[in-house]
């Protein structure tokens, strides 16, 4: 309280007391370790990647290193590979996040309403999220393997169907694996949102004669809007950077399943072309920022709003 009065005083007088100044200094010092750590672990790599992206720099030809300005960006943005990869990534993102939202909402309602066995139900639903993505991806790949997978042997599925040998089938399996893996995460975020909807509202709605569906669309959904947007934001950002599922299910992004992250990997790690690869990384970073800005500014997502409304 004393601190608050002190700051108010200084605001009023326009001068800072010694005490306020020293407290301010203390605040800076307390923040400093966190800020420095952030600068080292995020600021420096991003800055360095940007610096690299302005160079022609291939580890195999160290003598040819030179500054080329935005040439690498021009190369990437004028290539057909980049744009087809952006399209593939967007398709995967859009479809998987939509399915996850619907499924996640259903699962969240089940978890919310579960009367008995709440613990086991929640645990069972969360299992896929707890499994290492690479392991899960291998399971999906082997399940659909044209030679040894069991899926072909299932009833209602053609014995000659081999989804992993064509583009549409491969994308389908990748999306399925992605949905299976991250729906629990979506459900968990939505469950937190559901907890924000006061029961009295539902009771009031019930008294007014609203059906269950009306109560869901008119009461639950609007009140959950912030939680839904946050969940969508997190999942979209994640899905856009999809890497492990594709890397395992269709190695190297074969058969037209190459996503932007796989392209970055191929250029950076396989071709060890640090300049071009860093340009791709920075472009992915910018795309992710754009998505975040779209969610926050256009749709009005706010991570703080959730707690704000709850109190």
């Amino acid at each position, binding site marked *: 309280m004393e601190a608050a009065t002190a700051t108010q005083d200084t605001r009023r007088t326009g001068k800072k007391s010694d005490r306020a100044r020293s407290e301010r200094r203390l605040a800076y010092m307390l923040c400093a370790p966190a800020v420095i750590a952030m600068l080292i672990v995020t600021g420096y790599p991003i800055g360095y990647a940007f610096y690299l992206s302005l160079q*022609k720099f*291939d*580890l*195999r*030809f*160290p003598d040819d290193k030179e500054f080329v300005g935005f040439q690498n960006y021009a*190369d*990437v943005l004028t*290539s*057909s*590979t*980049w744009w087809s990869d952006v399209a593939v990534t967007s398709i995967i993102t859009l479809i998987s996040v939509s399915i996850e939202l619907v499924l996640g909402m259903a699962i969240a309602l089940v978890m919310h309403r579960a009367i008995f066995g709440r613990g086991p139900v929640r645990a069972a639903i969360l299992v896929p999220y707890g499994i290492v993505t690479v392991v899960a991806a291998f399971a999906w790949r082997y399940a659909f393997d*044209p*030679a040894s997978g069991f899926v072909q042997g299932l009833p209602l599925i053609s014995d*000659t169907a*081999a989804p*992993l*040998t*064509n583009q549409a089938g491969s994308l389908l399996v990748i999306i399925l694996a992605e949905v299976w893996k991250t729906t629990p995460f979506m459900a968990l975020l939505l469950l937190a949102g559901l907890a924000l909807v006061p029961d009295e509202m539902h009771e009031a709605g019930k008294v007014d004669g609203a059906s269950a569906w009306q109560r869901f669309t008119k009461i639950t959904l609007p009140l959950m809007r912030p939680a839904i947007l946050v969940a969508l934001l997190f999942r979209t950002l994640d899905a856009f950077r999809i890497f492990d599922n594709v890397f395992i299910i269709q*190695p*190297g992004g*074969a*058969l037209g399943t190459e996503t932007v992250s796989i*392209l970055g990997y*191929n*250029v950076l*790690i*396989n*071709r*060890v*072309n640090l*300049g*071009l690869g860093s340009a791709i990384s920075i472009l992915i970073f910018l795309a992710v920022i754009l998505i975040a800005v779209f969610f926050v500014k256009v749709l009005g997502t706010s991570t703080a709003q959730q707690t704000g409304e709850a109190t």
Partner: protein
Amino acid sequence: MPAIEATVTSLARWGRLAIGEMRRGSRRIRAALATTVVAGLAVLTGCGVGGTEGGSGRNAINFYAFNEPGGSYDKAVEDCNKEADGKYTISYVKLPTDANQQRELVVRRLAAEDDDIDIIGMDVIWTAEFAAAKWILPWEGENERVATEGKLEGPSRSVEFEDRVWGLPFTSNTQLLWYRKNEVGKVPDDITWDQLIDDAVEKETAIEVQSAQYEGLTVWINSLIAGAGGQIVTEAGDVKVDSSAAKAAEIVSKLGTSKAAPPGMATNKEDEARIGFEEERSFYEINYPFIYPSAEAVGKKFQDSIGWARFPRTVADEPSRPPLGGINLGISKYSETPDLAFEAAKCMASEEHQAIAAELGGLPPTTESVYETKKVQDAYPFADLLRESIDEAAPRPVTPAYSDISLAIQKTFHPPDGIDPGSIESKLKDRIERAGEGKIY
């Protein structure tokens, strides 16, 4: 990694201690925690900076190579260590099974100037890339003589780059056309791809090939193009894509869209092809000779029913150019004991060890005279055809930008049932040129 295990055990002990102290509410908890943190840091630095995968010490030679499942590389290492009698000790560090990952691991370490690598078991296609990047040492004088003397044409060309020798050919490899004698009769050595596909369609069987989007596809395409007289990159290092690329595309497309296409053709690699042949899904198979010892596991009768012919021709009037694979031993520039490494490499790639690699690992020798030895003649009834194929094989492009070019080829010729031979020439040329300049297409 015994060091790490020990540290982890002691960490766990300190952890238990710390919890115990906490329960007892003692002040010594701080000391215990501090020690835990220090031990944790020790683990981190142990893995990151000072760690070595293989042996360390002044006489330690680390040999990074793919994991030869037959055990012949292990045997070579063991023999040479015995022979060296303490002068050096080779440790065999096994690389991942996936060919792309093998290269990625080695390239990453070499680019970081890792002095842990002494001898590299280099795939034949790495020579130009590693030499141009100055990651490996040239073989000069006596070393050069040992590296090239008595070697077959294909392997000795695979270690050359800009008029110098950069490796010692250890084992070689090539592909043959395998078939089931009892099902399809005798196949002539001068059969063309067109005839082969027509024959397979007629006999209602499939032809197993390596046509997933990976290095194996480049192997196939390169041989098809060379078989039509083409050469993707000339000796001078220029990109030269001509009508032979269209001819290669016609063959791939013809097989890919025909009834002779094996199931899963777009994702098949060496092992899928082997399994398809062993499960009698296909009576024809293009593959490396490792499938022959493997067939013995299926049954002696099955193995005896296998016939072999030279890699099929692209065009009727020119001999085929079979693929060339194999492992060359290169010495890292960052090795702290290069002289010992050269010596150890020469020991491992001796004629005796080449014969053992042929016997145990199914890997054809690089030295011509080894084909005459009883061991090889016994292991391979087709030894002479192998030698001929390796001698006349078409090396893949020798260029520092090989992996970029290979990725471009793979992307252009995939999937096998979806390529357009009419437009492939200009597409391939454009992509290879852009890839070679370090751009994307």
